[in-house]
């Protein structure tokens, strides 16, 4: 069963297209890697999938029972987060922004779910720690936990390993792999083609001739 299907999708800003026509499908429990050169439209595609940018043409279709609010988003870190005074719990809880509607505060149930997700990612001991004092890997886990609170069926990760050392990268991949095995659908944008090949079930390569398929198909197509 698919949960996300794009047909002849062209993304871009205003009338300026950034990508060629893209057609791909993400199934429940899938692990899709989106790769491509700088400027190939990876970030633009992510923003379009999230509904922050209108598509220039083509369609984005969600599967039955699947809604955009099921997507948890992990954006790239920004410079101003580096010295931001916030404890891990506060950051994780902010993942429920899409659920709270007009309520000013988070409910008890949401706090419980946040707690569970922290345990799931092994960061419960950091709950009261200040975000700016964490290592890069711990910060990324915190943001991943926030994404888990935001969407419980699909994670959309935008270059999650961009600023991590090899060890932290490996353990983050392992964590994502585990979440995937537990049934979470993963869509990951990455530069790290080598690392991604070991991870993903499907690939989407952006560029002049975009292609979509398994790792083998992609390699054969590229030759």
């Amino acid at each position, binding site marked *: 069963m698919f949960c996300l299907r794009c047909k002849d999708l062209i993304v871009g800003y205003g009338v300026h297209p950034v990508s060629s026509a893209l057609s791909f499908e993400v199934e429940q429990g899938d692990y899709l890697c989106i790769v491509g050169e700088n400027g190939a439209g990876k970030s633009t595609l992510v923003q379009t999938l999230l*509904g922050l940018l209108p598509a220039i043409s083509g369609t984005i279709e969600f599967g039955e029972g699947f809604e955009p609010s099921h997507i948890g988003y992990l954006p790239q870190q920004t410079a101003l987060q580096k010295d931001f005074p916030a404890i891990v719990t506060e950051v994780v809880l902010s993942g429920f922004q899409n659920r709270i509607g007009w309520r000013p505060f988070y409910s008890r149930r949401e706090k419980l779910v946040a707690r569970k997700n922290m345990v799931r990612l092994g960061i419960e001991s950091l709950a009261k720690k200040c975000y700016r004092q964490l290592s890069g890997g711990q910060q990324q886990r915190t943001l991943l936990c926030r994404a888990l609170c935001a969407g419980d069926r699909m994670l959309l990760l935008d270059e999650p390993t961009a600023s991590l050392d090899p060890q932290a990268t490996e353990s983050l991949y392992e964590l994502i792999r585990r979440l995937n095995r537990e049934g979470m659908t993963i869509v990951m944008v990455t530069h790290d083609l080598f690392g991604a090949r070991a991870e993903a079930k499907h690939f989407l390569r952006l560029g002049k001739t975009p292609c979509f398929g398994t790792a083998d198909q992609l390699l054969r197509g590229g030759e």
Partner: protein
Amino acid sequence: MEEGVFQTLGQYLAFPFVQNALVAGTLIALCASLLGVPLVLRRFSYIGDGLSHVAFSVMAVAAIFGLSNNMFLVLPATIICAVLLLHGGEKRKIKGDAAIAMLAVGSLAVGYLLLSKFSPSANFSGDVCGTLFGSTSILTLSKTDVILCVALSVVVLLAFVFFYNRIFALTFDETFAQASGVRTGFFNLLLAVLIAVVIVLAMNLVGALLISAFVIFPVLSAMAICKSFLSVTITSACLSVFCAVTGMLISILAGTPVGSTIVAMNIAVFLVFRLIGFFCAEKKL
């Protein structure tokens, strides 16, 4: 000696205009420090300064036309500038700091130019100095001014409490907040309007050049020792109120200018908190 001080203070506090000043000053300090938290963290520290220069320029225009109550001209003009500065976020041609600096210097120059050419009063330099550094005007607040202060502070406080979690999400990660369906445009607008209102009110208290201190110092002091967003917010509000009250009392007793005394208090508190933060960090290592 001590008794003498308290006696003098007691005498002063009996005057309604001193009470008015204390109430208004405390509330303005509270609002400025609350709004200061998201502004400082989003690298908009200088916005207070820029907007107050705009307000100065508009006041100059109002003075030339001989408007007695310039609030109705100054407030909308400042709000419009605040909206222009905060709106559009990261996608503008002139980036935040440059836009603010441009607006600040430009409006200061134009305001001074206009006043020097068309000033209606004889004491031109006194007027300018008063507007820039705050004069005794905090002691001449009318009843309406105080009521306006109270009403606006209530609005700011309610908005801050009600939208606290959204403000956090927006400040920490604007992209994520937007993807979560937070109407970032609306909240940026709200923030811009509130800060403009607070700044126009604060001009009466500390003058155009010193307002930034109200927005920045309490937040930075709190950030020196606090770890969570909530504790930074609460601490900075408490510090700001403390500095405003003690600063005003000292200025009454010592006969110093109100604005600079409060800012001096803020600087002292900031240094103390930095020291505490420094030693706490040393211990942990």
